């Protein structure tokens, strides 16, 4: 593995499987009432969040703590960052505090890359979501969840058909998922109104479609993306009603999915918008499990980046 995790594309197939296998092992250990492992004792993990995301921050915090790391939460709100301190100055401060890993969430696409490659800090950088760019640990937890349900918890996702629906344009989750799932051999179809597909999506390793109904019957997993109602004001779609009718997952559409197929959502959900409440709460919905798997996967990432074992030569490609 590389020293940083900035993009799902940083992981080749072996790296990705190593993370997933490690996560499975760690999940087993923490299931066995061993809530805390001593692996990262004395190491410092900084959660550097320039954008509010309680869910992601808590997940990384729980992961680091279960590995006995010291955790510093650095939120941009109320800090000197909001008074205009630059990313560089913040990074130098963290470096002085001896951060072994910096988990960064930033509203600007590319901020984690800048943090990792400007020589400001020595530690590993983990991208916890940057702008509309990437969210690699989300894609890892999604793949982990799919593998559990669709591949017996082992190996890759060769030939599995994954339908990802919604606001792809603004979604770092979609981008990271397409990259990682392609690496793992899955066949991804992105479904969205044309207004919510990014320019250049035809170069991504996936198919695209405007027709949700055409991609239900053969789907092994259907992943719904959050759609913000504010997008309507920017004319990406006419109304919430039309959006749900064309691109929402309701009971009628869910009934067309194969029996084994699962429903996923990275959260937080807009119930009644992209996903009907009865679908979100259906037995085949694994949305709550995704949250639990997020901790295991983030433990694995921190463990592999910091803990040592099978880290490769530590150089950047």
């Amino acid at each position, binding site marked *: 593995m590389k020293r940083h995790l900035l993009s799902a594309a940083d992981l080749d197939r072996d790296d990705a499987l190593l993370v997933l296998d490690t996560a499975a092992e760690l999940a087993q250990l923490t299931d066995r009432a061993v809530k805390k492992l001593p692996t990262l004792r004395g190491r410092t993990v900084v959660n550097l969040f320039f954008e509010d995301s309680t869910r992601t921050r808590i997940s990384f915090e729980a992961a680091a703590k279960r590995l006995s790391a010291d955790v510093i939460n650095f939120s941009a709100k109320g800090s000197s960052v909001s008074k205009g301190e630059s990313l560089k100055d913040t990074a130098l401060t963290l470096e002085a505090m001896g951060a072994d890993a910096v988990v960064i969430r930033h509203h600007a696409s590319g901020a984690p890359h800048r943090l990792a490659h400007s020589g400001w800090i020595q530690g590993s950088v983990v991208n916890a979501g940057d702008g509309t760019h990437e969210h690699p640990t989300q894609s890892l937890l999604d793949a982990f969840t799919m593998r559990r349900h669709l591949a017996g918890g082992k190996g890759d996702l060769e030939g599995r058909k994954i339908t990802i629906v919604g606001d792809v344009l603004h979604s770092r989750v979609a981008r990271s998922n397409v990259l990682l799932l392609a690496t793992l051999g899955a066949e991804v179809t992105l479904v969205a109104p044309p*207004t919510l597909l990014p320019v250049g999506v035809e170069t991504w390793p996936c198919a695209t479609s405007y027709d949700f109904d055409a991609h239900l019957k053969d789907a092994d997993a259907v992943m719904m993306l959050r759609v913000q109602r504010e997008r309507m004001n920017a004319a990406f779609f006419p109304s919430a009603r039309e959006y749900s009718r064309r691109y929402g997952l309701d009971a009628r559409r869910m009934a067309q999915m194969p029996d084994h197929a699962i429903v996923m959502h990275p959260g937080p959900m807009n119930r009644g918008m992209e996903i009907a409440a009865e679908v979100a709460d259906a037995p085949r919905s694994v949305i709550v499990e995704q949250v639990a798997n997020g901790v295991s996967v983030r433990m694995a990432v921190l463990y592999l980046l910091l803990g040592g074992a099978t880290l490769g030569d530590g150089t950047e490609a």
Partner: protein
Amino acid sequence: MSSTTYVIRHAQVLGGEPADLVLRDGVIAEVTAGGAASADGATEIDATGLVALPGLVDLHTHLREPGREDAETVESGSRAAAAGGFTAVFAMANTDPVADTAGTVEQVWRLGHEAGLVDVQPVGAVTLGLGGQQLAELGAMATSAAQVRVFSDDGKCVHDAVIMRRALEYVKAFDGVVAQHAQEPRLT
């Protein structure tokens, strides 16, 4: 009607030499030299001196219904169209109410269907109430019984470039077309 056979005699097809057109089951079955087609049980129509053309399509009509039935109705507009050789007309959306919902376009489509003279294809408004501010439910109109594929705010013009871009992208999902009255309201 479709089981009947017609022979149209001495029509100048696209203005060419006079010819006979044999229409069987609603389609042109045969074209012969003028006067050569067998009339065997067919209804004959003498078209000497007349030109035969394919059915014309008018992409821009105002049938005024609903709302201004005193000026025109779908039925009267259909009749005028058929008399002029048009087999399909597209009815612009500036009715009252505006044709910006599935309900209104279906109403216009059904009126055309009931008149039964030409294909009446409602044009859907691009924006709500032709207001230029918010996209109308283009997808709902496209999947309605009217199967709308052409959208336009006609004389109101979609003058917001962002709305226009979104509309052009959005209609790709159902092979739609946006027809623009190309006028910049701030300049005219």
